[in-house]
């Protein structure tokens, strides 16, 4: 499609010194002239500009639809566009979710050059989340949008279960950071379930995982966003503190409970007056206990994961190679692996490698502890939050969970009055 072939004037004279050295130029009596190497043009950077523009435009559109118009139709159609463009056309790389890793790299690695559009991909959704909530998840993120499109019904999981599962994204995030900071792996890119579908090919295991997720999301609202997406976890923090609070209706809740049923991610909290009576001190004690538990858990997590750093460090290419080399030395008559063979063929120096590996392992010790601390902290914090009593008069949206899909708008009888006839799409 973008295949204009063009001629290329060489520039690798420096590199090709070797080639010259081993090659006396032939003399063609027929005056034959060398043709130049023919190859495809690199993808224009223009596309990246377009990506960013569309990203902003779509998020703005969602905001308008959610806050002003309270219409699901717009958001739904945005997800169509997103899946079509960001998903299938641009085939998903690099996406906001993945950009976490580049940012981490940029933070830990002083000489890493962070492309401007990657930075924007990372920051813009956060910015919007801070202002209006997770509008990015609504329909702009192709991964979320894809699940949104296939979702039909949703059978809600028990709150307690989903609360527990909502730890997973943080664990995922912690490991993503660990591997990115140690420059060993781009975990998110490795385990992206939908990229294969967008590219119509790729790692068969991941594709089938994606399909399973999609089938699940026919019946459960956005399983990936709820229980896996690390970027979603990040956004939820900011959206919880968002400047504008999303409201189901501007006409005041009549506690009809329709919205509560409609929410695919179980983000709508019913009115709540604490029924269980217990004396105040008990509650206070509980809170204090969990408040103390928080730092302890953090420490424990750090120690636990930190103690595994050596095993974890095997995820790094060089460490892996080094271990293989040691294996080889231990059993010389073992069949050499490709890495070891190449290492020897290129006359690699094992001491150099060892030095490198030691540095990597040191990094791992640090970042593994950090990752562990993060996990521990999140668990502690969740526990603390769960031990707080809240009382609510009306149905409210828990901003952290809400991926602004706008389903509830259509269910709220208060909104009905404004919308006289309903287009079919508004049912979806």
């Amino acid at each position: 499609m973008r295949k204009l072939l063009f001629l290329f004037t060489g520039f690798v004279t420096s590199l090709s010194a070797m080639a010259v050295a081993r090659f006396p130029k032939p003399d063609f009596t027929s005056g034959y002239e060398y043709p130049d190497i023919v190859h495809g043009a690199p993808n224009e950077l223009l596309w990246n500009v377009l990506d960013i523009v569309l990203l902003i435009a779509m998020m703005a559109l969602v905001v308008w639809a959610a806050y002003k118009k309270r219409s699901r139709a717009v958001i739904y159609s945005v997800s169509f566009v997103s899946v079509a463009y960001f998903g299938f056309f641009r085939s998903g790389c690099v996406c906001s979710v993945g950009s976490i890793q580049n940012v981490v790299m940029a933070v830990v690695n002083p000489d890493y050059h962070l492309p401007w559009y990657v930075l924007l991909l990372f920051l813009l959704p956060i910015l919007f989340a801070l202002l209006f909530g997770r509008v990015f998840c609504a329909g702009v993120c192709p991964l979320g949008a894809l699940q949104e499109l296939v979702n039909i019904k949703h059978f809600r999981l028990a709150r307690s279960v989903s609360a527990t599962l909502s730890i997973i994204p943080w664990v995922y995030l912690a490991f993503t950071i660990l591997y990115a900071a140690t420059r060993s792996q781009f975990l998110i890119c490795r385990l992206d379930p939908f990229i294969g579908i967008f590219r119509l090919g790729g790692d068969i295991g991941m594709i089938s995982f994606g399909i399973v997720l999609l089938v699940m999301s026919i019946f459960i609202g956005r399983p990936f966003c709820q229980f896996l997406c690390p970027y979603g976890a990040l956004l939820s923090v900011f959206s919880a503190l968002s400047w504008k609070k999303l409201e189901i209706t501007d006409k005041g809740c009549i506690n009809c409970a329709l919205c509560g049923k409609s929410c695919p991610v179980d983000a709508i909290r019913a009115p709540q007056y604490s029924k269980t009576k217990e004396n105040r001190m008990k509650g206070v004690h509980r809170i204090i206990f969990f408040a103390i538990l928080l730092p302890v858990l953090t420490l424990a997590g750090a120690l636990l994961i930190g103690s595994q750093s050596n095993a974890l460090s095997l995820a790094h290419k060089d460490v892996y190679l080094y271990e293989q080399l040691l294996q080889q030395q231990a059993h010389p008559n073992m069949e050499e692996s490709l890495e070891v063979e190449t290492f020897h063929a290129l006359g690699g120096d094992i001491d150099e490698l060892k030095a490198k590996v030691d540095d990597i392992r040191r990094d791992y010790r640090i970042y593994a502890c950090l990752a562990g601390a993060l996990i521990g902290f999140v668990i502690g914090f969740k526990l603390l939050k769960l031990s707080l009593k809240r009382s609510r008069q009306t149905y409210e949206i828990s901003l952290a969970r809400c991926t602004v899909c706008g389903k509830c708008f259509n269910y709220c009888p208060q909104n009905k009055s404004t919308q006289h006839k309903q287009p079919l799409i508004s049912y979806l």
Partner: protein
Amino acid sequence: MLSVVGRDLWNMFKRPDKLFYHSRRPQGLTLLKEDDDFVSPYRRVYGFMVPDEICAMEVDGGSIYLATPNNISVYGMSGELQTNFPTPSDLRDMTVHDGLIYALFPTRIEVYNRQGDLTMEWEACSENSDYCSLAVCENGIFVTDASNKNICKYTLDGTLVRFIQSPKGFIVPSYCFGVAYIDGKIYCSNPGRHLIESYTTEGEFIASFGKAGAGAGAFSGCCNPAVLTPSSHGDLLTSEKGIPRISCYGLNGEFRSILLDSKALGGGNAAYDVRVMNDKLIVAGGDKVSVFQYDKRQSQLTLCGQCEEDCPLRV
């Protein structure tokens, strides 16, 4: 599905490499299956390493002359350094003729004595010449030129006598254009055509032999044979690059045997430089010099064992 997830999580902690890397080795990328049944009639008896890459080797009167980038060193047979002296860096070939060391450079020839003082030097006859290899005998110096695709004959004091052209035309795709002087004749390789051609010292073409292919008695790949050298009783030894090996031919082109195969030589793709010192084969490649000795037991299985020539290489 749970089991899969569980296993991956386990690996995640215990053996992340298992999760992230695979040791699959793509098939069909071994170019030549080493035929393990090939037995070399020669056994490596000893060898030594030198501090630098070897560009050229010559053997003369019990000493081994090695040219490394910007050095010519003389070693004893057991690898002890006798003398060495510096030279310009881009040396291509070197040979020794009655006590004088002839060093060949792309557009220059320098002559040193054993102590390393420069006794003579002259520039190439044409400035765009690109010398490869040389042979020296009492009635002249023969230099192969890769860019002009001919052989220049100089007198021993460096005056150009004549150019020798090949009737078919030399094709020299890379810098291996070997030449050797063997009892009164000049033998040179026509690497592009996988031929060995012979000329009189006056430059008349006599004959040519050789065919393309990887089999025994043929020259494989690009530009072979790379090195020619006389055996101690006037057979012709060839050394090839690509799949390095050293074979023995009669002067009229009858193939006698492969003496050393890639395995015996130590692999790689570069051609090994080879010389004969009475009953020993001296082979130089990379920064290693190896000395090979005939082995009666092994040779029973090889052509070299059956060869009826009374070849000093075999006693």
